[in-house]
């Protein structure tokens, strides 16, 4: 069984494709409606960030297990300009595009684990996991 599936983000409609995939995976993994909505929304935020700031990238969705725990891991990666100030991005209300500035800190709150690796000029990879409780 292939445990990882991915969607390339190039156009705005790919965001819809990515979260559709996320919703299906979450449903298959046995998450309830609330967690399904959380995972889908998180993917939506991450995919939109790729579309807005990097132009293109991809969203990968993977089932993971850890000590009998079961969950879904989302990896959003791009080769865009990178995030110059990570601390600022994680602050509520900070936005460079005139948006709400709730995306990144929002994803962190929606999910259980959250990790950002970013290098200016080389790209960003965000890894985030939701565990099935």
């Amino acid at each position: 069984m292939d445990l990882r599936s991915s969607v390339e983000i190039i156009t705005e409609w790919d965001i819809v494709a990515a979260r559709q995939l996320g919703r299906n995976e979450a449903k298959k993994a046995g998450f309830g409606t609330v967690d399904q909505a959380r995972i889908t929304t998180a993917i939506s935020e991450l995919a939109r960030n790729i579309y807005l700031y990097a132009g293109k990238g991809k969203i990968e969705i993977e089932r993971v297990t850890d000590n009998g725990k079961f969950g879904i891991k989302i990896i959003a990666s791009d080769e865009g300009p990178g995030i110059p100030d990570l601390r600022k991005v994680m602050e509520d209300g900070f936005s460079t595009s005139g948006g709400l500035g709730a995306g990144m800190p929002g994803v962190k709150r929606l999910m259980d684990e959250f990790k950002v690796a970013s290098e200016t000029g080389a790209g960003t990879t965000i890894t985030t996991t939701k565990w099935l409780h």
Partner: protein
Amino acid sequence: MDKIMVEGINKNMDEIIERWIRRMKEEKGERFFHFMPDHLVEKTSREFAELMTSNISDSSAANTERINDFTEKVVRFGWAIKFVNKAIDNFSDVVYEFLEEQEIINESNLRTFNIIFRNWINPLRESIIDAYSTEWERTVSLQKIALQELSASLIPVFDKISVMPLVGTIDTERAKLIMENLLEGVVSQRAEVVLLDITGVPVVDTMVAHHIIQAAEAVRLVGAKCMLVGIRPEIAQTIVALGINLHEFTTKSTLQRGMQAALGMTNRAIVEVEAN
């Protein structure tokens, strides 16, 4: 030269078709011919072969009309473009091999035949690709129009109260349309309260929320109040987690509750009357 070639092909059409079908069946991952009944395979193959050979001409100016005819018919077969491409490739290969075996093609006229083949196959392929991509573009743009027709109309329900039901994904383009229709409708319908129903919106992320907040703010500027209704429990939880501030306007769980509140805001209520 092309006459000899056409004659050579026509005389041995059966053999060529048979070889071509065999080769198409050998194609990896291609199940098309295996699923079709044999007599149908035979029939479409013959038709395809006839269409292919009808276009051979060694003049560089290709006969556009005949090519269009070919394309139209091939598109009607309903084959996938990859399959058509393979079919054209294999057909020209088979013909080439056959003519070589028959010694119609030999070392002295190889160059001439190369040019004939190129003038024969390339326009066909170009025309096919063009036809398919035009078809796709048309489909996509039609669906876009259909989607736009579905989106966002403001419905006057009571005097001073209007509802806009939102269904489906909200992208940047639709958000713009929603805003326009909302403001225009509020002014023309003289609405005092507008209910935005998001029951049919599958995901409310920060962008969607941002658009809703902007729309509500704009509605406030034209002198009406905006109410957000149809917030499902799971959406409420994601909005809280995202930290989106919706304190500025009234929210209700369902359209029904929203309507009651809207009537209250315009100093009215629905009452039951006793039946006589």
